[in-house]
Every structure is written in structure tokens, then in C-alpha cells.
């Protein structure tokens, strides 16, 4: 199993991380954009895109909450080896990983404070259905309007209502990735 854990990380940490971050940055800066990301893979049920996000952004300084099926011993071992993120409850998480249903209720996650709105959680919503009915988006990063399938438009609209507070979301499935910052208006 150790050999398998080792073989599924980045082949070249600096270059794989640079390309992956550019894809994540583009997705977060341009809501509605769907990027392809598959530089890493981990034990089920984590998608290659979500595994790549973890390797790109998470480490021992970023408490991580695992939800539902993503909270299993194999995936914990893989994350402990590659990221060393401490596993924490939803309330204390900098990052959270799970499918949308398992992440509920999302009002448990940190939304930052008025003085430090950056101290908010980032939700990695895995096994996202990119082919569900699209929602119309407006706001920073979007020229006129964009569209993106969301797991639950109302929850994202409520989160936007907290702006400049609120969590931010990265949606993943297979090798696909999109992001929805709290600044995006849902209509």
C-alpha cells in the first residue's frame, strides 16, 4: 500500500503544482470556467481533480475536514502522507472535502470575520454533477453572465448574501474542476 501511496502523488511537485494552481486560479477568477486537472490520484472516492487540489493547496498548516465517504482510512493515510493536514471538525476546517450531501449543513463552515474575511473555509465539493441544470452567474470574474451547474443554487445564493464573508467552493468530478467564490451572484 505504501508503494501505491507514493506513486499517486505529483511526479514533479514544483511543475505539477504550478500548472494545477494556474488551473485553480483561472477557475476561481472566472466562475463558470471548467478546467481539467488530473496530476494526482488517491484512494476512492476522491476524484483526480480533488486529489490534485489537495496536493496543490493543502499541507500541515491547513486543517482539513473529511465528510461522508471521503472520511475513510485509506484516504486519510494518503492525505497524511502527501499533505500532512490535520483532520478536524467542520467548524475548525480551512478546507473541507466531501460530496455536497455529506458536507451538509454548510453553515457549519468558517465564513471569516469582518476584519479578516480571508479566514474562511474552502469547500472541495467532490463528485459534483457538472451536467445538472445550469445556474446563471454574475459578478466579479464574469463578463456579462456565465452558467454553471450547482449542487444547490439556494445555498450558494445564501452564502453570497454574507459577502464579504462566506466560504468559497471548488467543485470537482473526475478530472473536471470549477470554482465558485463567495463574490458570485446567483440568479
Amino acid at each position, binding site marked *: 500500500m505504501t508503494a501505491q501511496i507514493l506513486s499517486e502523488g505529483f511526479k514533479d511537485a*514544483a511543475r505539477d503544482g504550478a500548472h494545477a494552481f494556474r488551473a485553480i486560479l483561472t477557475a*476561481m477568477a472566472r466562475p463558470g470556467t471548467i478546467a481539467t486537472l488530473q496530476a494526482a490520484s488517491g484512494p476512492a472516492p476522491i476524484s483526480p481533480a480533488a486529489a490534485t487540489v489537495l496536493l496543490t*493547496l493543502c499541507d500541515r*498548516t491547513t486543517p482539513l475536514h473529511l465528510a461522508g465517504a471521503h472520511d475513510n482510512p485509506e484516504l486519510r493515510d494518503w492525505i497524511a502522507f502527501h499533505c500532512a493536514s490535520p483532520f478536524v471538525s467542520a467548524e475548525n476546517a480551512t478546507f473541507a472535502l466531501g460530496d455536497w450531501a455529506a458536507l451538509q449543513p454548510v453553515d457549519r463552515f468558517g465564513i471569516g470575520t469582518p476584519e479578516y474575511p480571508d479566514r474562511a473555509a474552502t469547500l472541495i465539493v467532490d463528485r459534483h454533477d457538472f451536467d445538472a441544470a445550469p445556474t446563471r452567474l454574475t459578478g466579479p470574474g464574469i463578463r456579462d453572465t456565465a452558467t454553471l451547474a450547482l449542487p444547490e443554487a439556494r445555498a450558494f445564493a445564501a452564502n453570497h448574501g454574507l459577502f464579504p464573508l462566506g466560504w468559497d467552493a471548488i467543485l470537482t468530478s473526475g478530472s473536471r474542476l470549477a470554482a465558485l467564490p463567495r463574490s458570485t451572484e446567483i440568479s
Partner: protein
Amino acid sequence: MSDQAYNFAYLDEGTKRMIRRAILKGIAVPGYQVPFASREMPMPYGWGTGGVQVTAAVLTPGDVLKVIDQGADDTTNAVSIRKFFQRTAGVATTERTNEATMIQTRHRIPETPLTGDQILVYQVPIPEPMRFLEPRETETRRIHALADYGLMQVRLYEDIARHGEIATSYAYPVEVAGRYVMDPSPIPKFDNPKLDDCPAIQLFGAGREQRIYALPPYTHVRSLDFEDHPFTASKADHACAICGSGTSYLDEVITDDAGGRMFVCSDTDYCAQNAKGGA
């Protein structure tokens, strides 16, 4: 080929992750200054270590990098930073705005309109737009938290009272997406309209002050002003002595010991292309 003594783009991966997380939060809250743990860089603070760290965290091996200082690619500062990334990241570099995928800048926005395939990184000396009005960090943080920007408005009004117009001509404050007041770095206010609705991602890095902030593409950026004193993007009322441009931002340069002077484009790439008829 990059120098193997360094990690790609110099910074270690842990530092890059920390900066990358700060950039993403900056994107999510446009105009808000995200604190980050700035690292020592092999160059003095005045040389844009904040911008260099942001560029290092965003750069990919396939990027084509342009570095400008006051619009020029050939100053010591710009040349040093360009060489630093050639050596540590092995990336291609260019002086042409339209060939660059990443542009690091000090004090200007290129005249050539930016595209959606580009990222502009600003070197920021003082990220806090109210630092000169309110030196206490706790107080400016409170003002941003409450969007209590009356103080800023008062300062601009005082400018009008004293000078008949708003005299602040560099680092002219802007309101981002209807929420945060932001310092656009010491660009001339002539460049302020280029911040608005820009197709490129704009990132701001302040090394000494340890702040990162961002403008996603197509963000509404409004220069602060008043109904009876609207914002104007002023420049010297001349044409460029080299390329003849009547629309680009000009620097006044002394041409001889007798005090002769002329006005030339501050953006050297734009000027060269325009002189060839290609801008």
C-alpha cells in the same frame, strides 16, 4: 534552462502554497488585503519583493514573462527581476506586451490593452489606501470591515478645496465591486480606467507590508470622486516626441544641459511599436 540549485521559481513549495491560498482568498474578496507571511527574497524590499513572490507562486514553465518598471523594460530593476525568473524558472521573456502571458509591473499599466490570456502582477509599496490618514492598522482594518470610508472622502474633498481639483495623481484610490476601497499601487491616475472591467487577472503584492490583493477579470473598479468634481484621467498635454502618440502616458525627459526637454511615452514597448506603425 533553469538553474538546478533553486526550486522552480525560487520559492519552496510550502511558501508557494501559502501565497497561492492568499491569492485565491484575494480573488474571492476583490480589493480586500489578505495578510501573508512574506519571505526574504534575494533582492531589497524596494525592488518589489511582494510582486516577485506573487509572480513566483503563479508562474508556470510555459509562461512568457514581461517585467516593466515605470513602463520601461530596460531599467535595472526590471532587468534584474526578468533575469531572476529566467534563471530560477527557465521561463521565456519578452518586452512585447502582446506576447506576454504574465507581466510584472511597477508603477504602470501597459498602453496595449490586456487580454483574457494574461495576468498582471503589481509591485506594491504601501497597500493600505488610508495609511497616510490613519497609521493604526487596527483602525484601518475596522474601517474596511465597516466600509466606513468617510475619511477617504474627506481627504479628497480637502484636495479640491486646496487645489480646485483632486491633486492626488498617483495611487489614486478606487472602489472595487462596490465594496472595498483599494490602493492601485503608485500608477498614475491616467491608468486608473484600465483597472476597470479588465479582461486580465490583476494581482497585487506588497512584500514589506505582507499583503496580497486581487482584481478578478471584468471587475467594476471606480475611481473615487464627487458629482461636482468627476474623476479625470489626466496626462501631459503633448504628443510623444518619438512616436507621435497623442493618447499614451508621457514622461518629461531632460534632453541636454541647457534645460531642453521633451515628452516621450513612458511605455517603451508601445512607443517602439507605434513608431513602426504597429501599435
